[in-house]
């Protein structure tokens, strides 16, 4: 909590200084700028809270801003409702519309997501024009100015704008230090790995866009009160979405103060230049924003704050996240143990599963069962469908035909994070670390699925790290690990989710003989905890000593099944997979 408390101290100080400044400034034009800047800072924070943390670029935040602005303006014109009430409504509508936008749009990633988001505000823009709201002016209320937020003293507007900004900062601080922040970071760094580690990526993205949309709605509502006129282009236009993005990226993506810094530099700059040169150069604001964002992309791609940090601390790797601390390495490995009661019974059953990609039959009528507590090896030549099988088992892809059950429950309609929660964890053939998080944080994210509190997650993570023997690498970023450490880290991340079954994908690939021995010992320890292991491997020799049973795949179909000594002698297997090479090696 201490980091949140520190943030709150900074936020409070910032508010105090800003208020004092506002009281000192006499010029009414400057006071107007001082009112607008916090509104745009809130928009920057709104964008940052979603896109900055999750990595999904939104070009559509104008939709939520514009709905907020029109809601406040129209409610006042039509029903005489006061802005105190309607700004709260605008917040709710912003959040709700963002949720409704998120539900379908999160099917998309990357380019497609960014493009789709662009279409929402622009579609709304034309709808509002068609509805005849080309220009909605807020009526003056001379009788009850305070009720309608029409103050004589401009400092009152600044106080309100500042209050909104402080609230947005507070929300960002709390969220970024919570499981929310870590989960979104994990999504940003590797969405598949996050999902497989038990993070409900859809849920967190929806939460993020809802809060983000609510902030944008509030900013839009307040904007209407300050400017008194709402036009479709001014609130739904491309420039609104662009400004939100530009302030956050200019100041520092994924930071608390970045969006504020961006707005505080760029808004006054463009406003002052506009006031001076608007007659000769009407588009000067847009040019400034465009040039600013081009410069940032070319010279400081993550924004000013990150650039300053890298200049102050050269050569230091950029680390994100900081929830976990390494105090709990006394953790007991038995935390990870699984009850042995059902040992030997079927834990996982694959029945008639087929999966084709275009014309390629990756999995063909595959049926087998895994017994609780066993160590099953899956072998087969390249392209035999081994990794596809794992992707089917942990829910990344769904079979065309067949049925997969785990402890009697069907996995067919479950998302990967649910499958992880049921007790199936996995590692990846090409390791997927969260590169900008420490090893400990990487593993903590794996622990979220079955823990409520930060301490509990940290305890489970510590136990897993201790089991694989990465205590001394806890602080290293995921990007700086050796191949062996990466694979151990992935194993620890899988273990931290308290799995009953672990799918291990080519964990021995590329390891030298010593490292391989070490890895085999770790796997032995995992097995002793009672965790069932299914392992894909090329290295037959190492596997023969390790596994209880083999399954051999060829062209997506089951070729043979049996104890290692049987498989080694099976002529079909030797012909299809091992060939002469194995005979020579033997």
């Amino acid at each position, binding site marked *: 909590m201490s980091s949140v408390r520190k943030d709150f101290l900074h936020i409070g100080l910032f508010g105090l200084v800003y208020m004092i400044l506002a009281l000192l400034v006499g010029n009414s034009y400057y006071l107007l700028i001082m009112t607008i800047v916090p509104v745009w800072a809130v928009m920057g924070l709104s964008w940052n809270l979603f896109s900055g943390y999750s990595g999904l670029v939104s070009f559509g935040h104008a939709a939520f801003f514009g709905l907020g602005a029109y809601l406040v303006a129209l409610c006042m014109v039509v029903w005489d409702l006061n802005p105190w009430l309607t700004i709260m409504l605008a917040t709710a509508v912003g959040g709700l519309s963002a949720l409704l936008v998120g539900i379908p749009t999160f099917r998309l990633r990357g380019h497609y997501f960014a*493009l*789709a988001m662009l279409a929402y505000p622009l*579609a709304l823009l034309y709808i509002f024009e068609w509805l005849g709201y080309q220009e909605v002016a807020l009526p003056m209320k001379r009788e009850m100015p305070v009720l309608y937020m029409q103050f004589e003293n401009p400092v009152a507007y600044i106080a309100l704008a500042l209050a909104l900004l402080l609230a947005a900062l507070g929300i960002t601080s709390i969220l970024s230090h919570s499981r929310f922040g870590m989960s979104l970071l994990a999504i940003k760094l590797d969405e598949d790995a996050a999902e497989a580690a038990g993070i409900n990526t859809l849920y967190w993205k929806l939460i993020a866009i809802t809060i983000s949309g609510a902030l944008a709605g509030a900013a839009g509502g307040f904007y209407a009160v300050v400017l008194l006129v709402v036009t479709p282009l001014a609130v739904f236009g491309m420039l609104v979405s662009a400004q939100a993005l530009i302030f956050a990226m200019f100041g520092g993506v994924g930071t608390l103060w970045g969006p504020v810094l961006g707005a505080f530099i760029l808004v006054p700059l463009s406003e002052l230049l506009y006031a001076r040169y608007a007659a000769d150069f009407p588009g000067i604001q847009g040019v400034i924003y465009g040039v600013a964002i*081009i410069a940032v992309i070319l010279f400081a791609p993550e924004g000013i704050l990150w650039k300053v940090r890298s200049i102050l601390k050269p050569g230091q790797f950029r680390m994100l996240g900081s929830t976990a601390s390494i105090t709990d390495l006394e953790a007991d490995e038995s935390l990870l143990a699984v009850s042995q009661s059902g040992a030997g019974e079927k834990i996982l059953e694959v029945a008639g599963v087929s999966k084709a990609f275009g014309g390629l039959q990756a999995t063909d009528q595959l049926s087998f069962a895994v017994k609780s507590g066993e160590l099953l090896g899956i072998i087969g030549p390249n392209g035999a469908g081994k990794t596809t099988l794992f992707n089917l088992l942990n829910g990344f892809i769904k079979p065309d035909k067949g049925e997969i059950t785990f402890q009697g429950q069907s996995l067919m309609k479950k998302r990967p994070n649910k499958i992880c929660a049921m007790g199936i964890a996995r590692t990846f053939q090409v390791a997927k670390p969260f590169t900008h998080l420490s090893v400990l944080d990487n593993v903590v994210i794996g622990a979220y699925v079955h823990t409520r509190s930060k301490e509990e997650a940290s305890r489970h993570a510590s136990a897993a790290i201790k089991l694989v023997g990465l205590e001394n690498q806890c602080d290293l970023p995921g990007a700086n690990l050796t191949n062996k450490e990466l694979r151990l880290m992935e194993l620890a991340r899988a273990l931290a989710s308290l799995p009953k079954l672990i799918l291990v994908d080519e964990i021995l690939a590329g390891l030298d003989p010593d490292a391989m021995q070490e890895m085999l010992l770790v796997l032995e320890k995992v097995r002793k905890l009672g965790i069932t292991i299914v392992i894909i491997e090329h290295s037959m020799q190492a596997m023969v000593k390790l596994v209880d049973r083999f399954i051999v795949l060829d062209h997506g179909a089951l070729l043979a099944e049996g104890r290692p000594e049987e498989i080694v002698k099976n002529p079909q297997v030797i012909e299809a997979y091992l060939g002469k090479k194995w005979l020579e090696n033997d």
Partner: protein
Amino acid sequence: MDALQYLENFLQSLVAGLLMGAMYGLMCVGLTIIFGVMRVINFAQGEFMMLGMYFAYFCFAWFGTYAFFGGLWFPFFLALLAGPAVFLVGVLLHRLLINAVTGRRGNKLEAQGHYAQLVLTLGVALVLQNGGLFLFGSSPVSVANELSYSAWEWGPVVGDRVSVFVNQAQTISALLALVVVIGFAMLMNKSRLGKSLRASADNPDAAIYMGINVDRAHRLAFGFGVGITAIGGGLLASNAPFQPYIGTEYVIIMYAGVVLGGLGSIRGAFLGGLSIGVLQQVSAIILPNQLQNTVIFICFLIIILFRPQGFFGNKDRTA
């Protein structure tokens, strides 16, 4: 209105849609080349279209009176000329800016530089449209001539009352668009240059090992892409008034067409653009004019949400 009247309206809109659609298709082809070869989403594509429009406009204003082709044909000639002119702008811009976040440099950035590319081209779009406001002014202009107001009568098609009027300027523009698309498709498929562009698109690393200058290929692809879209813009310029902000609404139209056709495919992009044109014009029969674009945006959302791989593309597509 009776049934024949509806039929006439429908045929009229269909023809207008096909003609507009051919120009949209041309612009979509420009956009899809950039994506196909560079894997870059160019946000500023609409602004390059706008540059093509103003190129045609200013050349017409300055030299229109001396036109040796006769005033009628000069705008179409200028539209074609906008291609090479904006090609040069694109090549220069690629060398100065875009190149820093694409290709192998982009691969070193987060998410292969996708976000950097999106945001950088957004910046370029902002600078071009607002700079355009300064250079070109904010009042709408057009390059209309007699042909823009003349039509051929086709018909009577059904009975003796239903006939369709085909706008002459639009028809010439659509035919030119078709010629440019076919010409470019042949360039891509047959020539050495086209092969090197396609190789760079398929596998940049392998292309480098084969001695292809991938940076140059990207630069050319960006130039071709914006140049072709600018020709589309130049052709549209003789059709309706425009102002510097026009790019934003067209960028969605272009993406709608490109996504409909499957990102990266030339044939798909043209057919996609054609469909969007038809959709836009036919929807105008039942919907008010202001909602034409909303229909396109909503269609775009539906396509991208439910069939992001498009309908007409070849197999080569990745997001």
